[in-house]
């Protein structure tokens, strides 16, 4: 019997964590010391890996560059949003003192959740030499889902939502909310949106339009405004629901199946949060050459993506050095190239050293989406995170399960 007890104890011991050294704090060091500490270390980065172009940029450009310039080995793991939140929450619950992660690609809703559970290290971004080049005056960069970034996440790229359509079938894409409803009714089964981040971002654009457009829903979550505007949104969606793909009885689970339905002709529209995606997908042969992107007159949400460091990271110095490289002019320029990723820069071109600005300005223009300067005029700010949480829940109750 005592053998069984011993085995159980061994098992339980294996499940618990041995005390570990507390993670070092890089904020007290000079940048030179940070560089020294980062030398020869490994940085564990968790990021969304759903796009081969983005993966190639990270694996073939960023990882070799940080190895060569700073002696840092960059290990990239796949994970996004709630997977990151869960990983960090589990580590905190288990009483770990050092996280498995050192750096994470995060967006607004994840930033909000990580701040809720106090899992983010910071403020740290003002320690980065290249942070002075960031366009922090831009409200689409200094504020994430209506929350000031406050140095807890480093801006990395900036994108805007666009609707993608097949110009072979859609000659004049609808530009107003009413026109979209009329189009959907006239062409049953050709339009839908997914139930994840992209689809909910689209719903937020409609919600802002219903509320009066522009900055109508800016600021903290307003229950009264939400109740008023969401009631009209559900009424609008119920009106077009029978004419959506599959008669609105189901919706694609994410952007990828929606893109697939678009590319095989089942849908005439798709949605993307990356205004450059239509160009890259056409170039890869995944979308027909007749695919085009546009932003309706009611606008679309523009947001930035960021890099965050977990509070329990064991290599904050290495993470900071990698983040600093990611916002360097060379890495941002490479990232913005159409054939590489096409991701919008977060740098203020006027702050760049003289030789860099012309390089950014001479980047090849995209073919299938309007220029960013045009999209910017229709850019809407992200709403407070509670809007997304409520929309996700209520969309299920009001539309999917009706």
């Amino acid at each position, binding site marked *: *019997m005592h*053998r*069984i007890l011993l*085995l*159980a104890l061994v*098992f339980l011991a294996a*499940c618990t964590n041995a005390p570990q050294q507390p993670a070092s704090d890089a904020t007290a060091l000079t940048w030179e010391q940070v560089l020294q500490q980062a030398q020869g270390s490994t940085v564990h980065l968790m990021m969304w890996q759903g796009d081969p172009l983005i993966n190639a940029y990270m694996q073939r450009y960023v990882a070799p560059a940080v190895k060569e310039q700073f002696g840092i080995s960059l290990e990239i793991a796949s994970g996004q*949003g*709630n*997977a990151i*939140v*869960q990983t960090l*929450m589990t580590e*905190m*619950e288990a009483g770990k003192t050092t996280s498995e992660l050192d750096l994470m690609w995060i967006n607004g*809703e994840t930033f909000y*959740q990580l701040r*809720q*559970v106090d899992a983010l290290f910071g403020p740290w971004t003002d320690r980065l030499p290249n942070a002075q080049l960031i366009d922090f005056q831009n409200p689409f960069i200094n504020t994430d889902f209506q929350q000031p970034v406050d140095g807890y996440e480093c801006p990395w790229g900036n994108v805007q939502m666009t609707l993608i359509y097949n110009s072979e079938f859609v000659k004049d894409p609808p530009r107003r909310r009413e026109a979209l409803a009329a189009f959907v009714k006239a062409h*049953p*089964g050709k339009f839908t949106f997914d*139930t994840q981040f992209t689809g*909910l971002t689209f719903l937020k654009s409609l919600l802002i339009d219903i509320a009066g457009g522009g900055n109508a829903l800016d600021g903290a979550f307003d229950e009264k405004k939400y109740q008023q505007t969401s009631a009209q949104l559900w009424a609008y969606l119920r009106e077009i629901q029978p004419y959506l793909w*599959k008669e609105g*009885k*189901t*919706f*694609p*689970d994410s952007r990828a*199946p929606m893109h697939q*339905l678009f590319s*095989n*002709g*089942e849908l005439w529209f798709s949605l993307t949060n990356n205004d450059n995606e239509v160009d890259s997908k056409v170039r890869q042969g995944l979308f027909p050459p007749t695919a085009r992107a546009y932003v309706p007159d009611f606008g679309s949400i523009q947001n930035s993506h960021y890099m965050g460091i977990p509070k329990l990271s064991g290599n904050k110095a290495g993470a900071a050095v990698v983040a600093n490289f990611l916002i360097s002019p060379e890495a941002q320029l490479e990232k913005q190239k159409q054939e590489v990723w096409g991701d919008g820069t977060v740098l203020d071109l006027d702050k760049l050293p003289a030789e860099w600005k012309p390089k950014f300005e001479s980047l090849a223009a995209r073919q299938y989406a309007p220029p960013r300067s045009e999209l910017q005029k229709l850019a809407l700010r992200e709403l407070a*995170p509670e809007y*997304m*949480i409520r929309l*996700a*829940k209520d969309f*299920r109750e009001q539309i*999917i*399960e009706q």
Partner: protein
Amino acid sequence: MVGRFNSKYASLGLFLALTGLPLVLGIGYSLLHSTGLAGIGPKGFTPAHWGEVLTGSEFWRSLGFSFWVAACSIGLALGLALAAVVRGQERWQRGILSWLIYLPLALPAMVVAFLVFQTLSGAGLASRLAFRLGLTGGIEGFPNWVNDPWGVGIIAAHVLMATPFFIILFSNLYQSERLGEYAQLAATLGATARQSARRVIVPVLLRQSFPTLVLYFIFVMGSYEIPLLLGSQSPQMVSVLTIRKLQRFDLADMPQAYVVGVLYSVFVVGAVVLLLRSKTEKTTTA
């Protein structure tokens, strides 16, 4: 004697430590999380999450839908496999089919789901063929077999995966139980081929494979990748529902995911114990 006794209980203890303990720990942790006694965030006991899951329709619809998918998938696969083995048992033991039948088992669930999607979706191969043959006027005329509320696509994928497995299982049982000799004996006593199949071969195959069928049923009920790609947004199979609750935008939904996990585990473990015990009792009585 004492040594053998100790050794028997040590083996049982080791078995339980490796299989039962992780399950008990997992369910225990989920229970604590679902009642607000563990996890990050507001602390303190609350039955609210249990109340929400038990009184809402979402979980029960999900459980019912998972049962429906498993019952249809196993029923169809069972019928096909029994027919294949009873009508031509030799071909699964010798010749090209005897090794070709193993190939579908090598396909991951996600690949099978993708194949079904490519075949049965509105713009899939079947729809294109139907259009070419003039049976439909376009995508709109093709039936809704993928992402549909009845789970046709999910069932098709599971039938594709389960049928070869059952054929191999039944074919081996046919040999090991020497059913060919019993069938011959039945024939000498005047039974027709149909009577021999219905009264001798099929009952023996079903009885001998019962535990495997129950476990496969549970496996289908808990499947994730196939319903994720081929399922509808509502109702969702239990695993998809759990992950949605666990990984979507609202952290406040997480305890509900643990409630669903605990409830489903209790149902499944209870059903397995009951079914297999009643089977054992019947066998012992017989």
